[in-house]
């Protein structure tokens, strides 16, 4: 197999393909049957090892046993011991509350569902990639995307809002602004940001259905939300967040 193909396969399984490499691999898979077979073979291995553990590779039984972590609950800075009973009571109380909320408040736990199913969208701006555009990129844009990359979505939403005001014709900036607003749970703003993209022919059009669907769901406009999430699931150009979109749709 060509080195290039091997590189692309390795990058695929290491989840480090950028958008243009993904497109290149996709094209090669359609034109090179040998590569397609190899790809499927490795994909099947990936599926097979998904449930397997590294630990069973340790031959010394005592050493393997030693790697089992102590029965403790992990917290950010400390480990609390023997807290299971308290956690069980707390969990039972929480479940009861959630059930009651579900019964008495229609759509009461949608906020949590939406937040949990809001997947981060990778930064695909060309200035981020190595060998990307030579065009100078204003520092405020770099700064805004840096906040986005760090997952500081409320700050990114504010910074990208200013960027969109300064560059209203750049629809890519608008998309990332909308995604940041969804993550920051500022749903009315997200709808305003993303609506024009869903009606455009931009590359982010399909992805915008998903985020716009989440924004409408967060804004309790359920018919719109359902319609957009379904449109996302029906898209033929490949969707990355199928599982999340399905979960939200089922929960509405």
């Amino acid at each position, binding site marked *: 197999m060509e080195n290039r193909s091997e590189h692309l396969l390795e990058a695929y399984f290491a989840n480090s393909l*950028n958008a243009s490499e993904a497109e290149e691999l996709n094209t090669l898979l359609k034109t090179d049957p040998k590569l397609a077979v190899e790809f499927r073979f490795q994909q099947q291995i990936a599926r097979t090892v998904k449930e*397997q553990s590294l630990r069973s590779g340790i031959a010394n039984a005592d050493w393997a046993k030693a790697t089992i972590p102590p029965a403790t609950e992990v917290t950010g800075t400390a480990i609390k011991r023997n807290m299971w009973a308290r956690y069980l009571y707390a969990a039972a109380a929480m479940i009861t509350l959630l059930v009651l909320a579900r019964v008495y408040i229609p759509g009461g736990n949608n906020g949590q569902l939406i937040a949990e199913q809001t997947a981060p969208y990778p930064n695909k701006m060309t200035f981020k990639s190595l060998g990307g555009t030579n065009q100078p990129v204003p520092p405020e844009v770099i700064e805004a995307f840096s906040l986005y990359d760090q997952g500081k979505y409320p700050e990114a939403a504010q910074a990208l809002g200013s960027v969109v005001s300064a560059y209203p014709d750049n629809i890519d900036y608008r998309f990332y602004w909308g995604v940041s607003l969804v993550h920051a749970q500022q749903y009315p703003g997200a709808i305003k940001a993303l609506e024009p993209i869903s009606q455009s022919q931009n590359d982010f059009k399909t992805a915008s259905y998903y985020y716009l669907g989440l924004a409408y769901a967060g804004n309790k406009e359920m018919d719109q939300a359902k319609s957009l999430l379904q449109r996302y699931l029906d898209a033929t150009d490949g969707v990355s967040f199928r599982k999340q979109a399905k979960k939200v749709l089922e929960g509405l």
Partner: protein
Amino acid sequence: MNGNHNELEAFRKNPNHVVSGIYQTCRPKFIGWGKDATRISVHDLADIFQNAVIIMVLNLESGRLSELIGTLCTYLFGIGKNLVQAFRRKQGRIGLPGDEAFPLTRETDAGIEDAMITAETDAQLWSKVDALGEPGRSLIILTYKEGLNSQEIAEVMGYSSPEVVRQLRKRCLDKIRKS
């Protein structure tokens, strides 16, 4: 014999004691670092740390870890940081046909040859991977489950270069195919 060598010796004599100490002192440090430096949840960081401990033991068992430059905790941080990188990449991955999130269509299906491969059940395939033994088995898991690239695998498993890892993986895949 220096203090670092003592840690390895102590593990060989009383693995439970040493690992229990690692979980008590090193894991909170790792989780504290991870919380500040990444957006990964505490429980995912705990899982990552546990994998780092297992890899450390695999390396000790294979003889690839025979000498420590720093402490065991520093060594675990080195492994853990590579696992964290791979974990973060998983969250922003780009899908291709055949992914769970991107089912095959008529256009992207490779056809009959593909069907012959998928006819092999996962259990049969896993028994072939398992039969590779170490280090092939771990290398396959780190590549296809944990999503580490060759450079990262070389670092965590103690190989001299990513090229060595690629050659080893190629031999493993050939063996699975032929068995």
